[in-house]
């Protein structure tokens, strides 16, 4: 290794340094953002509303989808590190679903979603639900071309999640507080949760619901219908 510049070569340096600096000034995520922009156009041309569902593992993303699918024209892109479990659950409802396995990856990116969209081939005036890999960190940074980012938190996770995972709550357009039927059995300060989420994102909308029991689902469906109508 060259001791002067630290590069892997064994060359020597004259007084005039042999390296030259090339300015790039390039956003690292430019490629992903470019592909996300293309996805957004592709979706707009078909009048398809895409939403990106993000949460920690086990917050209830797939159960919420199962509850939502019978009510609206929906197809689904499922992201998980491994297995077809979630796509199988979605297909069992009669809904079209594509499973993406990210392997070592902890999030979906725009290129994966572009491939899945073409395979899914969603009809005009419909909704594509993109269920991201269960993770409150990485998915926040990657634009997929979606119209809205939704973060789902369940009351069993604790009310401290917004301040622990600020990037996710800052990126989100909507927060769904799930498993509210369990509120009598857990210590979860709903007011603190909402106040902390608004410290990060003053305009954020928070809806409370129970995907298993059905409470609050009407408000969620109303939110989706309004977004679909505005989008198509």
């Amino acid at each position: 290794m060259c001791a002067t510049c630290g590069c892997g070569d064994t060359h020597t340096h004259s007084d005039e340094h042999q390296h030259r600096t090339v300015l790039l000034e390039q956003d690292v995520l430019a490629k992903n953002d470019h592909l996300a922009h293309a996805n957004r156009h592709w979706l707009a041309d078909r009048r398809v509303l895409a939403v990106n569902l993000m949460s920690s593992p086990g917050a209830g993303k797939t159960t919420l989808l199962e509850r939502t699918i019978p009510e609206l024209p929906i197809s689904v892109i499922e992201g998980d590190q491994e297995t077809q479990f979630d796509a199988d659950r979605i297909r069992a409802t009669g809904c079209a679903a594509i499973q993406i396995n990210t392997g070592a990856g902890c999030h979906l990116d725009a290129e994966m979603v572009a491939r899945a969209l073409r395979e899914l081939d969603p009809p005009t005036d419909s909704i594509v639900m993109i269920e991201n890999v269960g993770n409150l960190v990485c998915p926040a940074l990657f634009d997929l071309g979606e119209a809205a980012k939704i973060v789902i938190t369940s009351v069993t996770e604790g009310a401290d999640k917004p301040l622990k995972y600020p990037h996710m709550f800052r990126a989100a357009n909507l927060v769904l507080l799930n498993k509210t039927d369990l509120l009598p059995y857990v210590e979860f300060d709903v007011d603190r949760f909402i106040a902390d989420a608004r410290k990060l994102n003053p305009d954020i909308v928070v809806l409370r619901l129970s995907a298993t029991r059905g409470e609050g689902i009407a408000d969620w469906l109303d939110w989706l219908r309004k977004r679909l109508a505005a989008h198509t």
Partner: protein
Amino acid sequence: MHELSITQSVVDAVLDRLPDTRIAGVQLEIGKLSGIVADSVRFCFDLVVAGTLLEGARLDIDEPGGRARCAECDTEFDVDDLILLCPCGSANVAVLTGQQLRIRSVEVV
């Protein structure tokens, strides 16, 4: 661990812009509000560059802090995390800088 794919994106972008060029150094700018851990990028860099024209390259990372402006009182202030509260108490705050994730330059042999 999104830093692995971020680091891969850095290397891919450099190889796209400067194909067939031996790279001796890479200068990155990772703002403190970007959500990217610079130490993780350093850890991943040597793994990702192995077998490429960037192998052995030096990695320099500049980590500028964040600045924000309050929409209520127009004050500008430093921020080190995303809990953006103006000294006046308002949370209606816009981030001005600190979220950047950029390749500034590279050293070519």
